């Protein structure tokens, strides 16, 4: 009797466990998308357009328009907040259950999806955008020579914001054109007892994203990172070490506020906004907040000056593109055609116009509308030249971690640029 009850209770316990487990694994979002009822093609689409920002609204409008113009195709879209989106894509990708269309982030974020054979290239329809999107703006969504998505907006990560009044006081009507003059400016500002460049590198990515991405490009040229990744070049290349030395030199000559390792990028923007510092090197993301907090400030924007002996284009600026949409690798036949049709309709000239009107720089070759803010127009003009890759959007994440903390150590003097180069090369080789 006792034995029987025992085995019963064990059975019940097992049953409870099984029920609990099966409850957890419900809600399958399978990517199988075939036909459905009648002739309608249904496509699932995940994006991050949850907030009512101008950019999101412009994007959602494109979907609406497409649905109206294509009665046979239904886009079932699901908007998920940015951070959760990334986690969701990562976990669903691990289970090979991505939707038909998925918003993707460039470079290092896209590569694992390609390596896992979860998304498919769109090269066969690329000619559709020949007149609209320039070759140089496509790079972030290209992996191993194949195009996986198209860019919509573009965000320069490395602009020099300067206080025109403070520079004038120091005797500069124009922003210096060369690095040597730039250093002279820093010395003059220092002797005037102002902080030359506001920097907050506590989170470590600022020196990488806003500094080395452009300074490195000045020295090595824009092909360097991809050449390093495919093994043709090495981080120990002299030109790259020279680029790191520029950062070391700036920190050695105390161009930054002395607490730059213990404040963050919001705090360095405040330093600049309050007039404690004459310059800051920051991405385009600071433009809006700056205009909002100090609308009367006389701000100029320039690119990092030319460096002697550099192999890169001195008018290049590191920038990262966004709002790409990739196609699930399992799409074929009718579904694939519908998805491609969607991309063609989505990335239209009208969309880029709408984005520009919302003060967003776009990755397309269009005439800007007349009513955009003058500073945005200036940024737009500055970034019209060559686009250089941003390090953390190009390198594998563990290499990015190495360069992030390494640059900080270089400014502290606990690591030499040569040592950092060696470590980076080691990290690249390990990540293969």
């Amino acid at each position, binding site marked *: 009797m*006792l034995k029987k*009850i*025992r085995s019963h*209770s064990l059975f019940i*316990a097992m049953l*409870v*466990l099984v029920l*609990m487990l099966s409850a957890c694994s419900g809600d399958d979002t399978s990517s199988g998308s075939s036909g459905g009822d009648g002739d309608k093609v249904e496509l699932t689409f995940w994006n991050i357009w949850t907030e009512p920002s101008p950019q999101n609204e412009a994007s959602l409008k494109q979907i609406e328009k497409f649905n109206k113009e294509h009665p046979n195709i239904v886009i079932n879209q699901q908007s998920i907040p940015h951070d959760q989106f990334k986690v969701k894509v*990562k*976990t669903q*990708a*691990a289970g090979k259950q991505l939707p038909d269309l998925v918003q993707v982030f460039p470079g290092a974020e896209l590569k*694992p*999806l390609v*390596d*896992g054979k*979860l998304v498919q290239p769109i090269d066969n329809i690329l000619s559709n955008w020949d007149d609209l999107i320039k070759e140089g703006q496509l790079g972030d969504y290209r992996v191993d020579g194949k195009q996986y998505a198209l860019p919509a907006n573009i965000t320069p990560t490395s602009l020099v914001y300067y206080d025109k009044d403070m520079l004038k006081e120091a005797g500069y009507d124009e922003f210096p054109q060369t690095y040597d003059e730039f250093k002279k400016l820093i010395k003059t500002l220092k002797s005037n007892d102002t902080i030359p460049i506001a920097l907050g590198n*506590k*989170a*470590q990515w600022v020196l990488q994203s806003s500094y080395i991405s452009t300074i490195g490009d000045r020295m090595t040229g824009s092909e360097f990172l991809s050449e390093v990744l495919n093994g043709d070049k090495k981080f120990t290349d002299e030109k790259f070490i020279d680029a790191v030395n520029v950062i070391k030199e700036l920190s050695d000559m105390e161009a930054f*506020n*002395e*607490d*730059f*390792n*213990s*404040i963050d990028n919001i705090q360095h923007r405040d330093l600049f906004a309050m007039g404690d510092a004459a310059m800051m090197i920051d991405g385009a993301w600071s433009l809006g907040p700056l205009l909002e907090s100090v609308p009367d400030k006389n701000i100029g924007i320039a690119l990092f000056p030319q460096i002697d002996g550099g192999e890169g284009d001195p008018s290049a600026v590191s920038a990262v593109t966004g709002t790409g949409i990739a196609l699930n690798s399992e799409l074929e036949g009718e579904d694939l055609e519908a998805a491609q049709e969607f991309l063609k309709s989505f990335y239209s000239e009208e969309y880029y116009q709408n984005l520009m009107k919302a003060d967003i720089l776009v990755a397309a070759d269009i005439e800007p509308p007349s009513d955009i803010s003058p500073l945005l127009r200036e940024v737009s003009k500055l970034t019209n030249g060559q686009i250089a890759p941003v390090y953390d959007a190009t390198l594998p*994440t*563990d290499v990015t*971690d190495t360069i992030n*903390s390494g640059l*900080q*150590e270089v*400014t*502290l003097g*606990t*690591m030499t640029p040569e040592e950092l180069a060696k470590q980076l090369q080691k990290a690249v080789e390990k990540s293969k």
Partner: protein
Amino acid sequence: MHLLSRSKWPAFVGLAPAFLIYILFAIVPILISFYYSVMRWDGFTEMEFVGLANFQEALTDPIFWQSLKNNLYVVGASVFGQIPIALFIALLLNRKIKGGKFFRTVGFMPVVISTVIISLVWGMMYNSRIGLFNQLLESIGLESLTQNWLGDPKWSMISVCITIIWQFVGLYLIIFLAALQNIPEEIYEAARIDGASGLKQTFYITLPMMWDSIIVAVILCISGSLRTFDLIYVMTSGGPGHSTEVMAMYMFEQTFSSTRYGYGSALSLFIFFFSLALVYLSTRILRRKSV
């Protein structure tokens, strides 16, 4: 008792749900962690079995050793900072002084304030340009002693540890006060009759009587220090360089920011065994002194 000795199964059935949940949420993840730790996996592509390579890498990873060293530093600062200070204040507060309650509340306050807020406020106080400490030093003419507290690797760990000590002294203070109040007054009376002075009472009665509480505090202190994460994460993010990196943070970065799930799992197992060993060791050492 009599009932249980005859048939044990009702007890098992009663315990089963809790036990199941414990297995599901504590034991299984640890086992999964073992499984991941022998794999190379970025979360996207296929897992690849790499044997003990992750553990091997951890053993030769200078940053991991640095983070371990920093962790030991935190453990040391906590055990030899928090506990003696808390004990000292508790002994003072245990006398009948005016405003004892007030001091107790004030002392306990840091424990209930959110760590993020503590980190931000202390971060501002440490700031080398506008921070309280440097301005204080300057205002009393000790300009030569001002430091770049969090921005200089020589000082960053010390600065972080001071904040950690400050944050948790209150917790042990309360534990010790509770222990002190449980010591019967008669023992002291007897001691006084025998002519034992205040200091002698402290060393021969108070401390031995509360030794068990001290052991508990030490264990709490060690395990808490090994888990330390949030305060340092907000204050310095492990920087500058890796000078304030601790194991939990390094594990977190490797796993979720570098997406190296396998290596991160190996690191977390190291942390697991290391904590186990340290807690075991400390109880062994302290038990021997127990009365």
